[in-house]
């Protein structure tokens, strides 16, 4: 299986904004009618790292991800992705970002293969059989390549969406509750992909209410509550999570935690 070429690291061409961050947003607020989904959200992510955005449902995680993806405009605040301004250079950002969303966003009446080929064509690339096969294989859907997505389970659709993310070859991956609807194998697959991605210099943000699953690959935790973000020590986040699920506290992060505290 050929290894896909990852995004370029080190020197990042920028026109504007912070050169050292993959994502840098500050003071983001967004309202829907009277309701403020985000009040004051700020975070930054360095290239080659994965950030976790931890919060319960309704805390604004999805909204913040959508703003970073340029799907939504912020009511207030500003930010940049790899130096491109969120509002003024949204099209430039779209070239660099891929989203694994809350809903899979697939077409049920097309096959898995056709969905991926469509995604490639819409990204401006001609699909090759080889790369589509590789992506399907990577997420474990090789045998279902020509089945209609309508027949897929939620987990399978998620995996297909993940394959689509891979094919986009993004520099920034945004994942919204990626571990939902996944079994242990799926979770391991997501984390492996994230590990590869950051090793190649890319960045990612994982929005989840379940930080323990993300812990193996996450470098930085951000907590979000009622639309406000705070950078958080992993220890606090994991301790809170561990309180609910004592069996699962991964080691690599624990080491980092010791380092941070000690």
């Amino acid at each position: 299986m050929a290894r896909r070429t990852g995004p370029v690291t080190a020197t990042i061409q920028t026109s504007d904004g912070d050169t050292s961050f993959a994502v840098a947003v500050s003071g983001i607020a967004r309202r829907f009618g009277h309701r403020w989904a985000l009040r004051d959200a700020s975070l930054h992510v360095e290239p080659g790292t994965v950030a976790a955005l931890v919060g319960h449902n309704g805390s604004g995680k999805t909204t913040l991800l959508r703003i970073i993806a340029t799907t939504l405009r912020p009511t207030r605040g500003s930010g940049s992705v790899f130096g491109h301004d969120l509002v003024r250079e949204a099209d430039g950002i779209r070239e660099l970002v891929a989203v694994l969303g809350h809903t899979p966003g697939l077409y049920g009446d097309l096959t898995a293969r056709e969905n991926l080929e469509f995604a490639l064509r819409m990204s401006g690339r001609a699909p090759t059989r080889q790369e589509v096969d590789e992506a399907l294989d990577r997420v474990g859907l090789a045998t279902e390549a020509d089945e209609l997505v309508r027949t897929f389970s939620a987990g399978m659709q998620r995996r297909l969406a993940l394959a689509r993310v891979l094919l986009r070859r993004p520099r920034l991956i945004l994942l919204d509750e990626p571990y939902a609807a996944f079994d242990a194998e799926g979770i391991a697959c997501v984390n492996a992909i994230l590990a590869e991605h950051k090793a190649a210099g890319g960045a990612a943000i994982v929005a989840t209410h379940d930080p323990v699953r993300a812990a193996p690959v996450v470098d930085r935790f951000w907590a979000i509550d009622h639309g406000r973000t705070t950078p958080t020590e992993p220890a606090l986040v994991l301790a809170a999570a561990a309180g609910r699920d004592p069996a699962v506290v991964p080691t690599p992060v624990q080491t980092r935690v010791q380092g941070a505290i000690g």
Partner: protein
Amino acid sequence: MSWRAELTRAAALAWKDLTAERRTKANFNAVVFLAGMILLLFGFAFGPDAAALRAAAAGVLWLTVLFGGVLAFNRSYQLELENGALEQLLLYPGSRKTIFLGKLAANLAFVFLVEAIVVPVAAILYDLPLARPFPGLAVVLLLGTFGFVTLGTFYAAMASRVRAREVLLPLLLFPMLVPVVVASVEATSAILAGDPMGDASAWLRLLVVFDAVFFTASVLAFEHVIDE
């Protein structure tokens, strides 16, 4: 992105819509069935007098196409709204105009296919000559349908995302289509009657102007209505 690349994207989008439709045929069957029923009902409403039917035929035909088409437009966006596919669609790099062009192309193909069935059925039910007037008829159908589908695709981008979509799309769309209906029906009537006074060409020119104005306006305005 180069215009060539954008054209490829629009084509990919249109192909995707048509493939999905070809697999289920749900829309197509529903629209053709509805159109057939409307033609029959109009026949009963006007009575068995052949002359009266033939005089009303052009109007009946176009109204049938209109009511059928409206069904199709909202459904074309439904495809994107279930499962949140629209959000992914908006994430691809490139112009929003391309999304409009792709949807327009798919809807045009759909409505033309419906017309390919409805026109012969109307000809049978209302005893219309099709052979000699066919070239003129084809031109009217082309121009009229283009204007209709352009505006239908545009307004459905909004109406389909609102709760009262079945009401809002006709409310927004039909008054805008008055020139299309008037011009198409008059031109069709004239052509079916052999066009003794050369009326049809004036109407066709009006259709061309309508199509040009609203195609341009829709393409330019689309990015403002498709985003979140």
